[in-house]
């Protein structure tokens, strides 16, 4: 009897011990072992962001609050704040505004559009009949000047242009005065660390014109414009990061409509072969066929598009589908086409600009971010955190519905690339962004 009691007591003790330990262990979640990011050689205090569309947050073919919030400038500044930067001051538009582009149109979204055949499908559409002109009023405040100096469509030649405010309403809304250049605005902020993304717009202007009507800046001029800007900004000892330029011909604006996008039935192909026999371009077949494009250098003034040539996204699709553009009723106008020669010009200019940018960054001791290489990867497509990123129009998640500018996810990718180059050059450990937290294109 006595033994049983002892046993019972022992068992109670053991049971108690076991249960107590269980409770202790259950509550013992794995511990977070977080290490604070380090600033390395950076003086992060006064940051200034300089650049074009990606820095300004121009996306879906307009400047709007939605895009500004997720601009490369906003995302990068958010991470720089973790090493002690002051908050970035951005010229935010009201969140309810429909935004505007330079020609007074609202931002775009993915919506339903009915084509000439009465077929409704997903397509980029404007969210309002016109843009918000109220955006174009000067917002400058001397007590709290903008440190996000992103100006949509900024070109190298405009950085030191004292009349820039007269010609560019996006710059006019943020500048300290009508006679101050962008460079004046930058130096007045006395930055300790800056980001400069320049050159993409210089090349895009040419590409968006279909290579007709706009000239590419000469490489020497581009180099001297950027050199002057960098030397002026760094004269106070400021450090920073310079990015290079992607190959814009890989953007979905140029790659979505194929050169041989004329899809024919067997009957249609046969009838075209009869109707267009005199042109002697070749034989139409069932399936994919080349468009006829205008080409002033060819004897008849038009020809078949060649493999590798690019059709711009703004080509009037209804004219192609229902009114014989690119087939029975004549060629697609040159302004909608990048020919092989034009593509080669864009690529060689990009190469030249990028080598200038690399040497400028090197000479000034700046970090250099190879955005060009990032976009080469995006063109092929790659996964990150379970998300597949590619330059495919709409579904790739990187480019916005305008096919040229980026989604928040695309901007986060660029931001990460910039952070990596900053960390490498300045021995800092700024965290990159979690790509999965940023959206791609919004679907209806």
């Amino acid at each position, binding site marked *: 009897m006595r033994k049983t009691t002892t046993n019972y007591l022992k068992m109670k003790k053991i049971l108690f011990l076991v249960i107590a330990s269980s409770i202790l262990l259950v509550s013992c979640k794995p511990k977070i072992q977080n290490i604070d990011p380090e600033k390395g050689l950076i003086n992060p205090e006064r940051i200034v962001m300089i650049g074009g569309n990606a820095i300004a947050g121009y996306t879906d073919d307009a400047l709007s609050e939605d895009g500004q919030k997720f601009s490369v400038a906003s995302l990068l500044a958010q991470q720089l704040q973790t090493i002690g930067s002051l908050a970035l001051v951005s010229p935010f538009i009201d969140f309810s505004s429909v935004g505007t582009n330079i020609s007074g149109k609202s931002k775009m979204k993915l919506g339903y559009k009915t084509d000439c055949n009465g077929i409704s499908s997903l397509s980029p559409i404007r969210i309002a009949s016109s843009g918000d002109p109220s955006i174009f009023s000067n917002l400058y405040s001397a007590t709290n000047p903008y440190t996000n100096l992103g100006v949509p469509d900024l070109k190298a030649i405009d950085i030191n242009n004292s009349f820039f405010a007269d010609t560019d309403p996006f710059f006019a809304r943020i500048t300290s005065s009508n006679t101050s250049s962008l460079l004046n605005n930058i130096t007045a902020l006395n930055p300790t660390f800056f980001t400069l993304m320049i050159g993409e717009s210089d090349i895009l202007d040419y590409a968006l014109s279909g290579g007709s009507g706009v000239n590419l800046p000469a490489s020497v001029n581009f180099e001297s414009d950027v050199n002057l800007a960098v030397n002026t900004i760094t004269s106070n000892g400021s450090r920073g990061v310079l990015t290079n330029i992607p190959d814009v011909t890989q953007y979905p604006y140029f790659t979505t409509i194929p050169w041989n996008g004329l899809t024919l039935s067997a009957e249609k192909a046969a009838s075209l072969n009869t109707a267009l026999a005199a042109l002697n371009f070749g034989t139409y077949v069932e399936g994919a066929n080349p468009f006829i494009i205008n080409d002033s250098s060819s004897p008849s003034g038009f020809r078949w598009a060649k493999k590798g040539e690019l059709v711009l996204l703004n080509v009037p699709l209804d004219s192609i589908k229902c009114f014989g553009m690119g087939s029975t009723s004549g060629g697609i106008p040159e302004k909608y086409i990048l020919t092989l020669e034009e593509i080669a010009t864009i690529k060689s200019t990009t190469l030249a600009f990028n080598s200038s940018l690399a040497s400028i960054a090197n000479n000034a001791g700046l970090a250099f971010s190879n955005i060009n290489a990032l976009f080469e990867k995006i063109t092929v497509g790659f996964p990150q955190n379970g998300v597949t990123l590619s330059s495919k129009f709409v579904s790739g998640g990187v480019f916005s519905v305008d096919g040229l500018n980026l989604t928040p996810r695309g901007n986060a990718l660029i931001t990460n690339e910039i952070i990596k180059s900053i960390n490498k050059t300045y021995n800092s450990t700024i965290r990159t962004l979690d790509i*999965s937290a940023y959206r791609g294109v919004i*679907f*209806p």
Partner: protein
Amino acid sequence: MLKLLSSILILLPFCSYNQGFQVALQGQAQQGMASAGTALLQDASYIFYNPGIGAFYNKSEINIGGTAVFSKILFEDQNSHTFNRSNSPIGTPFSAYGVYQRHELSNLKVGFGIYTPFGSTVSYEDGWVGRFALTRLELKAIFFQPTISYRVNDYIGIGAGFVYSIGSVNLQKDIPVVDENSVYGKAELQGKAKGFGYNIGVFIRASERLKIGLDYRSQVDMSIEKGEAIFTVPSGLASSFPSGTFTSSLPLPKIISCGLAYNLTEKTELSSEVNFGGWKSYDTLAFDYQQNTSSLVDTKSARMYKNSFVIRLGAQYKLNPSMSLRFGSSYGVTPVQNGYVTPETPDANRISVTTGFGYKLNSKMVLNMSILYTSLQREDTNIETQLSGIYRTNVIATGFSFAYNF
């Protein structure tokens, strides 16, 4: 003894309970000894551990037990250093065994077992970094095993069981497409599966003190014939992600065990074993959708598991005729290779520590209790998703069983 017990509990910094998605929690007495049960003449749990033991277990018994598995995962994204936690529900593997012997000298014994040797539920907090790889996976498999054991002579017993398995799977993840209200798409794949297999074993009573056990649990292929795929996406994408049916299958690998049990003294028994897991059969997780679109293609995700093993060591000490204390430790090599770690099985090599006790309430009733702890860490970049980071997991499993002899 109490001191020893408490010091072991305090010394539990490294601990584990399964390997891959195997759950070696099928008998409380054995669990207290690191589940080293292949050569252990213990109780009716032999149906799972080694049907050959039944030939020498001269009792009829009903044995019912269950375990509560608390598993906490912390994921650290290698790029952004974002931290996310799992919020998996408590796992509840259970076992129920009934064995019957007509009289004590009979050399034939029959039994039936219902148990859950595989499966778990893993879920992660909302909006976690790996949400597009996985948000939740619920994997269940229940084995039904009628078993017969036969005593060949005084030294050798053999046993065999037929396994019929039913199971279910429910896999959820987010799709990286978003609507105007910032709601992401969602995929949910669910289905019921069934499979067949067997469990055969040999038990050798080499001497009064030394026992040897060998067991072979076959691979069971759980096939989902008509699973249901439900996609919740923005309406503009509904035609790209048609909900419909899918087929898939998951191999539950063969486990080969060999063990030794040795009575060191009249009061102390040691048990050890090696489990070999045929995980190599899990090379691909494929989903074949009935209706494909350019956005919804059949998937074949490489898993590339490799064969691996677990070493288990256990001991039990008879404090007195009614009370036994148990301890154990095991070391398991993960079947998951670098580049193939996924959020559903962030597995790693691991050491587990266990303890437990058995208490005879009276001549017919036995109560068993066990507890297991393990902590593991795995760093990897998955080749398919490029989800890259460190998984830190703590697991504790504690359970009770009740046996009635007649």
